[in-house]
């Protein structure tokens, strides 16, 4: 169906129409809840973008979302639907924590941060390895296995976190890391940001986006990645080792999801807590679909969801009837329109364009 449409239509027009559909449905729901959609939108934009502290939170949330969005995107480029970003990020938190608990009294900040990142990436990759291996070598569908691993991670982390609680404490969380293990916050350089956790992870995320963009569109490996996702037969003809590609992509995907935990933990709480992921893995799916796996699209989508998270929170304080959970609804609608129904408007658009000619 998309073969008839010019590139600009599939890259911009359709996604925009899909996004607008999701937002329109949201506006309708808000209206039915007795609130004004335009007023809500104004509050949201003010909180998430215009207010400097709010913007800081938006970017803070977006930092994590960029990583989970990248994780799902890179797997999608190979034709794999990695639903397990949630579990991979959760398990990565453990890797990060173990590294910090071991080294935070002996290493300076300069080393602690990369060590933490490595711990997170390693554990995230590890959690994605088994589903990747099973898909490559046994044909077990990565969707079902990653969903299973999400639950296994939840159960596992439940047990482990309890063990990490320092004696005498009630909170289900590990002890706090040493001050050296904290990601430098941007309010050091921009006091206007106020007491917000926006930290250098944001720049790490940007760097990750750039690397992703370069690798996927300009490297030989990226070429092979996309060929595998678009046409497995041609990929085999081209000499690509498909099983190796699947496993490696899942490892990278898990590692990227894992890096999302660096922002949440080392950038914010400084300890490992129960369910700290809070749905970021699933938001990554929405971002990957909405952003069409393109670095700019991922960035913009992550900003959108960061705004929704921050703005949604403030909105819920002002409007009783629009709780933060509304953002979850928006997330689902975006996945629906940008993912499942992405070609909904294609025939209409094709007709429109033909009429113009």
């Amino acid at each position, binding site marked *: 169906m998309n073969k008839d449409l010019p590139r600009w239509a599939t890259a911009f027009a359709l996604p925009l129409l899909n996004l607008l559909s999701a937002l329109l449905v949201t506006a309708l729901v808000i209206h039915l809840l007795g609130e004004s959609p335009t007023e809500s939108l104004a509050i949201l934009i003010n909180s998430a973008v215009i207010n400097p502290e709010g913007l800081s939170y938006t970017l803070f949330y977006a930092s994590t979302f960029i990583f989970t969005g990248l994780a799902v995107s890179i797997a999608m480029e190979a034709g794999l639907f990695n639903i397990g970003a949630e579990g991979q990020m959760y398990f990565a938190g453990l890797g990060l924590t173990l590294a910090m608990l071991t080294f935070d009294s002996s290493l300076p900040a300069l080393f602690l941060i990369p060590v933490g990142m490595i711990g997170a990436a390693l554990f995230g990759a590890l959690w994605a390895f088994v589903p990747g291996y099973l898909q490559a070598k046994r044909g077990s569908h990565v969707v079902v296995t990653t969903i299973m691993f999400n639950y*296994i991670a939840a159960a596992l982390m*439940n047990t482990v976190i309890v063990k990490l609680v320092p004696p005498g404490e009630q909170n289900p969380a590990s002890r706090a890391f040493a001050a050296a293990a904290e990601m430098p916050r941007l309010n050091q350089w921009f006091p206007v940001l106020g007491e917000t956790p926006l930290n250098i992870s944001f720049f790490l995320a940007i760097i990750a986006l750039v690397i992703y963009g370069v690798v996927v569109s300009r490297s030989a490996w990226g070429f092979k990645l996309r060929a595998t996702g678009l046409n497995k037969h041609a990929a085999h003809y081209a000499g690509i080792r498909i099983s190796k590609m699947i496993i490696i992509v899942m490892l990278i995907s898990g590692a990227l999801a894992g890096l999302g935990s660096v922002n949440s933990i080392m950038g914010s709480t400084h300890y490992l807590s129960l369910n700290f992921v809070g749905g970021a893995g699933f938001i990554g799916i929405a971002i990957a679909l909405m952003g069409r796996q393109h670095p700019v699209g991922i960035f913009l989508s992550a900003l959108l969801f960061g705004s929704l998270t921050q703005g949604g929170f403030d909105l819920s304080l002002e409007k*009783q009837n629009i709780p933060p959970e509304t953002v979850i609804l928006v997330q*689902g609608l975006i996945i629906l329109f940008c993912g499942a129904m992405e070609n909904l408007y294609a025939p209409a658009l094709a007709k429109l364009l033909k009429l113009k000619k």
Partner: protein
Amino acid sequence: MTLDDLHIGSILVSTVRNAPVLIFAGMAGLFAERSGVIDIGLEGKILASAFVSAAVAFTTQNPWYGVMAGIVVSMMLASLQAYIAITQKGNQLVAGIAINIAMSGLTFVVAQYIFQQGGRTPDLGQARLFDVVLPGTAAVEGIPFIGWVYAHLIGGHSVLVYMAFALVPLVHWIVYHSRFGLRLRACGENPHAADAAGVSVERQRYMAMLIAGFLCSFSGAYLSIVQSGFFLRDMSAGAGYLALTAMVFGNWRPLYTFMGCLMFGFFGAVQIQIEGVELPGIGRLPGAMIQMVPYVLTVIVLAGLMAKSVAPKSLGIPFVKSR
């Protein structure tokens, strides 16, 4: 009775009471997937019907109206999925995930709006479905063991529990011994052969999805009306995915899927009982470890290390007529 007996007894009773959520959803998923459509959206349908059932049951003070309302909502969601999968030929996995996430948010928001109780519905109190007391329960009350089994294990459950258990042989019969089931299976395995034989693949799949919606609603109604008496945020807690797991574990066959559901129900019951209990030789087992077992088992099955789990051949592939 000793303390030990109580434990095992409670576990068995809990198993029977945990299973229906999975059985209804599992049978629903079975119909959908046997026709060739992936139904990852069970979770969302369960949540939606759980909320609507509880809300309507409370408002009308009649649980059966609640159940009917749940059926309507679930079937509407199933129609959307069917439209996406069959007519739009869109990505069925994404559609299911989208519905799950959207319903997670929407149910909370609407519950909050209507009832103002932090995203839950008020307690149903008396407006819950009745428990079935089997005839002659009082008579056998005195008999050790058998009396207990009759009164508490076999009898004394909600009517929906009996419906769930009765559903299994019914589904088995429909799938394997009825015309509908034959056509259903053909559409899932080789839709081209079904098409060549004059069966409308699209119509068959739509009907399968609607049945899935219908059956899945009972899972939600059971959760909110029978098990808890109210709707709570995300109360399905992965039951939709567990039901799918049971189905994969059961090789897409009704009876084995049922056994998978019982297994999950069993582990769920054991998990609660085993907290803090000292086991000989092993010590204390954290409940979370038990919780993990069914998922790990499924991964093992998926890896083909235990029996081979074979999905319907055309599962997930939109049907396009070849001529």
